[in-house]
């Protein structure tokens, strides 16, 4: 996996701050689990969080310091095994390890969708596109994060392979196209999608996305 497209620094920063809506945080966590570069950035952003925390004027504690409880010694965490499958561990908790075992909802020719329930705000979906299939042009009221889990995806902002993330805000409308081998992606939005053409807007199966 050679990752070249990353979430925006402002997205990573919001993640480190603990203020990214749940759906966007899920995609970011998935990317972090396969991307050493972003992993290191988030570590530095957490350092900033620690500094901000220690600079906060303290609130007086009302109770005395509790007695220190017994420590349960845990062995140090060893190297975490590389994820065996194509579903990054943070997503596997939500959808399991096998993309082919999922029940997909057919949307239109060559296009399938699956809604993934998530707490904490925003909407999370998986979509599967057959080779060359075009996702209808759309924009967003807020942010949209798309991560490729299988195959490739391209739009006006570039080409995305496995592990890459396309991070868009409301200023961009795009028409993603599945690559020659098709694709499976996970996509998070913090607000509803704004479908550009009325015809598309009326296409019922997309409602709710």
């Amino acid at each position, binding site marked *: 996996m050679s990752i070249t497209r990353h979430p925006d620094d402002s997205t990573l920063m919001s993640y480190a701050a603990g203020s990214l809506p749940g759906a966007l945080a899920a995609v970011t966590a998935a990317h972090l689990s396969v991307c050493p*570069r972003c992993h290191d950035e988030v*570590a*530095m952003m*957490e*350092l900033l969080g620690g500094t901000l*925390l*220690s600079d906060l004027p303290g609130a007086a504690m009302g109770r005395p310091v509790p007695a220190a409880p017994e*420590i349960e010694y845990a062995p140090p965490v060893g190297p975490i095994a590389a994820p065996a499958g194509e579903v990054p561990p943070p997503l596997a908790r939500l959808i399991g390890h096998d993309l082919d075992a999922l029940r997909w909802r057919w949307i239109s020719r060559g296009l399938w969708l699956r809604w993934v329930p998530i*707490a904490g705000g925003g909407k999370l979906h998986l979509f599967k596109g057959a080779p060359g299939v075009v996702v209808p042009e759309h924009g967003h009221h807020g942010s949209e994060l798309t991560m490729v889990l299988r195959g490739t995806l391209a739009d006006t902002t570039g080409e995305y392979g496995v592990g890459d993330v396309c991070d868009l805000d409301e200023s961009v409308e795009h028409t993603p196209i599945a690559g020659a081998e098709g694709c499976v992606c996970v996509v998070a939005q913090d607000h509803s999608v704004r479908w550009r053409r009325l015809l598309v807007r009326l296409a019922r199966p997309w409602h709710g996305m």
Partner: protein
Amino acid sequence: MLDFSIIPGSGGQSPLSAHRGIMADLLQRIAERADPAAFRELYEVYGPRVKAYMIRKGADAGTAEDLAQETLLTVWRKASLYAGDKGSMTTWVFAIARNLRIDRLRREVPWQELPEGRLAEASGEPLPDEAMAEKERKQRVQAALAELPAEQRDVVSLAYIEGLSHSEIAERLDVPLGTVKSRMRIAYQKIRQALENLE
């Protein structure tokens, strides 16, 4: 501002800890010897800050204190997982407090993994700050924060301390979402630079 120099180190450290910062030393005392005095220091230094952090997200004083206590007990229990890392004690406390705040106050799944869960997956390339003592890194970050224009410092603070999303910050400040994101991006680049330039 916290002054870490007031926290006494303990003599006779193992060679492993000899070169570390004072707070890391405190963590070491917790991890290696379950030193109750170290727990008291940890509690007195961080308790009020973590409590204030919880209050900022809307917790009442009692809940905030419960969450602060839970945060520091978690630090205490998990210190052995974290000791040996070159990172910062403060970062570790922040990450635990952040996850608890997400979990309890926003009723959300805590997506953020704690630093120890990610250590092994790091690139192996040293972070620009890795060679620095914790105190020095903190001072660098504090100085960089102080130099930020107010509009950049505000978005950082709203995200980290008030726990607002990009959209919520945009609404609060009545600016476009893209403006919030670019302010955060620029603020981060400056802070990152401050740490890199120290090498």
